[in-house]
């Protein structure tokens, strides 16, 4: 146990001290914050600047609570025209009967002005119209867009973190094998401690990344007001994503260590890792596809099949309400897969890591003891 923790701690302190790690963390944090603020800066809540010439201001704010409405008044139509053409105002209401705009009016603003105008006139005439009550008899679709967006972001995040950490594991294994330091290491720690310590250490770094992203993202979303659009259950979703990251990472990182232990030079890492990176990519693409159709058969079936479940179950969890037992069953299947991969990976690693030189064949390693 001691050996395992010492190895893990070395991985963490070594990586944290590199410039690359801190810069990477900073860049992701900034990126996440930028993404959270983007809707406000670009799309943002709509804002209208309106003018009046010899008219009452219409109660637009009551009809469109999300919009920001500012009013200005002009002495005459000419002054109003100039302001419209200069782009100072979006539209000007003249004498309560006519609206001046530069080109076609913004359709939403047009509908808004028309209906509020009618309502005010009718109200003045003593007619009151109760607003229509909207009622959905289907699923709650209020948060559909937000949910789909969150699912896409999650999948991308899981993919990038898994890929990044898994490559780090591979490079670390080859560093130790190629520099032959592994022989001294294995004379003091057991192979599973060396392998496990590396995987745990780099996994903790991945978690630090993930938590940073989650915290920065949530904080930025609160500040920017984006969080108001979030569906309920975000904390649960984040907890789920952490668990799925750990499971997915354990699966891929163990395989990565096994594959990497077959080669002795950094230049050979990417080629020996190709099958594994392909598997991660395929998992990502399928998961990305299912963000469009999170309730479809493909998503439902693959959300139980390791290692696809590591990315697809989070998509389903983000996009719809998934019963707890389904999440549990899928996690159990993944845990079994992780255990199988651990025993396979440890065997390959143990047999291959001391055999430096030419690239080994997986089949040969499994056959000979």
């Amino acid at each position, binding site marked *: 146990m*001691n050996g395992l923790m*010492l190895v893990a701690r070395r991985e963490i302190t070594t990586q944290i001290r590199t410039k690359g790690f801190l810069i990477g963390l900073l860049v992701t944090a900034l990126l996440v914050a930028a993404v959270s603020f983007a809707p406000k800066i670009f799309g943002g809540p709509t804002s209208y600047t309106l003018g009046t010439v010899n008219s009452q201001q219409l109660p637009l704010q009551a009809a469109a609570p999300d919009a920001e409405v500012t009013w200005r008044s002009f002495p005459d139509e000419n002054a109003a025209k100039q302001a419209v053409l200069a782009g100072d105002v979006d539209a000007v209401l003249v004498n309560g009967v006519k609206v001046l705009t530069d080109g076609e009016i913004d359709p939403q603003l047009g509908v808004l002005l028309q209906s509020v105008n009618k309502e005010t006139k009718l109200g003045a005439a003593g007619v009151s119209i109760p607003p229509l009550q909207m009622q959905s008899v289907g699923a709650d679709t209020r948060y559909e867009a937000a949910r789909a967006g969150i699912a896409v972001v999650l999948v991308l995040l899981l993919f990038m973190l898994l890929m990044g950490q898994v490559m780090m594991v591979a490079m670390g294994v080859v560093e130790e094998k190629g*520099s*032959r330091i*592994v*022989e*001294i290491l294995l*004379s*003091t720690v057991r192979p599973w401690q060396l392998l496990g310590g590396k995987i745990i250490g780099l996994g903790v770094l991945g978690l630090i990344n993930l938590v940073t992203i989650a915290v920065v993202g949530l904080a930025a979303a609160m500040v920017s007001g984006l969080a108001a659009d979030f569906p309920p259950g975000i904390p649960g979703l984040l907890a789920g994503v952490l668990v799925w990251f750990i499971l997915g990472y354990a699966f891929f990182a163990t395989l990565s260590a096994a594959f990497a232990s077959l080669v002795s030079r950094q230049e050979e890492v990417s080629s020996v890792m190709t099958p594994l990176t392909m598997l991660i990519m395929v998992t990502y693409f399928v998961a990305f596809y299912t963000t469009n159709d999170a309730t479809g058969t493909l998503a439902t079936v693959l959300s139980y099949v390791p290692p696809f479940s590591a990315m697809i179950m989070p998509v389903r969890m983000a996009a719809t309400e998934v019963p707890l037992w389904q999440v549990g069953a899928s996690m159990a299947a993944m845990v079994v897969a992780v255990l199988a991969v651990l025993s396979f990976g440890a065997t390959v690693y143990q047999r291959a890591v001391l055999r430096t030189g030419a690239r080994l064949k997986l089949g040969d390693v499994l056959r000979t003891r």
Partner: protein
Amino acid sequence: MLEISDLRKRFAGGPDAPGGKVALDGIGFSVRPGEMFGFVGANGAGKTTTMRIVMGVLQADSGSVSWQGRSLGYDERQRFGYMPEERGLYQKMRVAEQIEYFGRLHGLGPAEAKKATDDLLERLGLTERRSDAVQTLSLGNQQRVQLAVALVHDPEVLILDEPFSGLDPIAVDALATALQERCRGGVPVIFSSHQLELVERLCDSVGIVSAGRMVATGTVADLRAAEGNSLRVVVRDPSPGWADGLPGEVTVFGDRHTLRTEGGDDQEILRRAMKAGHVEHFGIEQPTLTEIFKEAVA
């Protein structure tokens, strides 16, 4: 006492050796505390394989290794120091941190590891370089760090695979002194080497291995006695045929004739030589380790 008995190891065959390759065919020897044991043999004889098995890095097919009467496990090996034939350090890690890390892996506490590291750095003259990355060190200094990694936990047993290879004469002396110190402290030291004069100078006992078998073990004196002394006579410009009928072999270099023999009547030989010419040298000589080695593996 470190006892190695009847180790056997066969490597699985590759395309070039389908039947597999027998690397060790019954290797056995023992080393007492405070004894320096030289392990010699041609390339491919099985030295590295033997040491790897002792260190638990490889598993033997059969045979056993025991230390102080107990068979070796991970816990015992934690207190061993090892320098593999293929050196290796974390190139980007700082010198002191690296040594400390290995101290911790060998079971030292944080404070102990730090103190042991500081002491070693001081003794090896690396104190100024303690915060530098290993890759910025000269090869000689990297070798010292490698030694420090093997010594940091004050090992009970030292196993070094060709520790002198690639060292300049001054570094050889420094390493020899360091090993002798440990040895005097009661640590059994095993090292392999091709530098037989060095082995002869340093070691209390020697094991000669050839093709996976021990062909000779014992103290250098025992091996010499077994090999037998030889008589060497050098005569300048002797009359032709002076050595006819004498045992041994004559080699001629210029006008100097050298007779070397392991038997015969030395007084008779001396008389004949003096009669034949000018005797420049007459003496009993002990065989060198090189001669013993060549004889043993022949």
